[in-house]
């Protein structure tokens, strides 16, 4: 960490492949006083939804960084991962049911959409093929105070799709 509480962050974005998109995405960084260190534009690597992942390294104070991420999100840029240090909370759940038939990738996308939440790890086990219920272990990471929101999103999607949720115990218990 350098002076005045500045530290470096890595932000992973998903951009629509259109002219001006990248520039638009970088503006909030400069506007908020962040220092751009590097940009890795993975043009050859398209996400399942046809977007282009971009990894941006920058230096900023914590307050500046918050502003940057908020500005990116409000301008419609999809922020996939905003510096690992932002994800201070972790949540593991096991989902049981017809996971594949109920569109697993849609489920995952909806968990991410609740903001400040990312799917860090997924293990799927479907020993009996698609006939019997399958199980998935899901590790979600969330920024501070967001894990209960993430759990609510999981419950909501599961209720809608008829999935069972094996939740972790409430915080502080073991």
């Amino acid at each position: 960490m350098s002076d005045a509480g500045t530290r470096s962050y890595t932000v992973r974005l998903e951009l629509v492949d259109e002219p001006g998109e990248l520039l638009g995405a970088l503006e909030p960084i400069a506007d908020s006083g962040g220092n751009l260190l590097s940009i890795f534009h993975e043009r050859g690597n398209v996400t399942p939804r046809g977007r282009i992942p971009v990894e941006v390294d920058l230096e900023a104070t914590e307050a500046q960084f918050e502003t940057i991420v908020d500005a990116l999100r409000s301008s419609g840029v999809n922020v996939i991962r905003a510096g690992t240090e932002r994800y201070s909370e972790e949540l593991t759940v096991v989902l049981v049911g017809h996971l594949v038939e109920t569109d697993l990738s849609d489920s995952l996308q909806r968990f991410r959409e609740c903001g400040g939440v990312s799917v860090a790890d997924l293990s799927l086990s479907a020993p009996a093929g698609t006939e019997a219920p399958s199980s998935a272990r899901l590790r979600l990471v969330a920024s501070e105070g967001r894990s209960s929101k993430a759990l609510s999103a999981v419950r909501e999607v599961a209720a809608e799709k008829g999935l069972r949720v094996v939740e972790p115990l409430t915080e502080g218990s073991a």
Partner: protein
Amino acid sequence: MNVAVLGAGAVGTSVVELAGEYGHDVVAVADSSSAAVDDDGLDAAAILEAKRSGGAVGDAAPEAAFDAAYDVLVEATPTTLGDAEPGFSHVRRALEADRHVVLANKGPVAERYEDVRALEADSAGTVLFEAAVGGAIPVLSTIADLNGQVTAARGVLNGTANFVLSRMAAEGLGYEHVLAEAKDLGVAEADPSFDVEGTDAALKCVILANVLYQETYTLEDAEVEGIADLPGSALELAAEDGRTIRLVGEVSDGRVRVGPRLVPENGTLAVSGTLNIVQLETTHAGRLNISGRGAGGPETASAVLADIGRLPPAGRN
């Protein structure tokens, strides 16, 4: 004290068998079809023998038990939901006659807690129900001793469900296979739905909530999910991550929830077999863990007899 026992199942007969060791006399025993009454004290061995050989407990009508010279009524009839009958009426009759009541039956204190407390307030008798939560484990007396310090409770409160989950995890066997095994071993009843659907654990949590919050909760206020048909793959995925799954009941922040939960594989809550465990969160004493046998005739009877020992001197005139 003179004890009248209603219900001659595993718990009721164990109370009859062990009461003498605790210095009590059993003056009446009744099941749903008959009763044995003797104000000078019944012969426990003869009652147990009659019950074992499939006969009636006695030659009097079940009603006759209430006419005995009892100080405390032990309510050990099967737990029923909703109006909690006939257990609730038994409790009422005893309290209206100013006698003490000790419950092993969860129904009246889970479904009609307010009614039971109202009857108790108008009676010289006292109601205790340690045996209704966690069998042999002294949960409610610990909570009472802590004098309002307990802020939350959670635990594994159903031995059948815990047996199924721990066997599935340890042996990699399927749900149906382990459940069949549990039935063979007498760990699960022929109709295990009460246990595997989470109802039994939920009733115990509702009772805990009633005691902790001094309010009236019923089964309807609990969010309940069971473990029936949980695939083995769920337990395998949990194990890969150093965790396992237990049917856990939680009472905190005014909520009652029961469901399968991920717990650390070697953590405190991951008791194995038919064991139960209760964790109490306290204001000044941190966390307390108490584990032990949550079911069984002599085990549960020991909690009933401990309650009898806690009662104030006889309410009977």
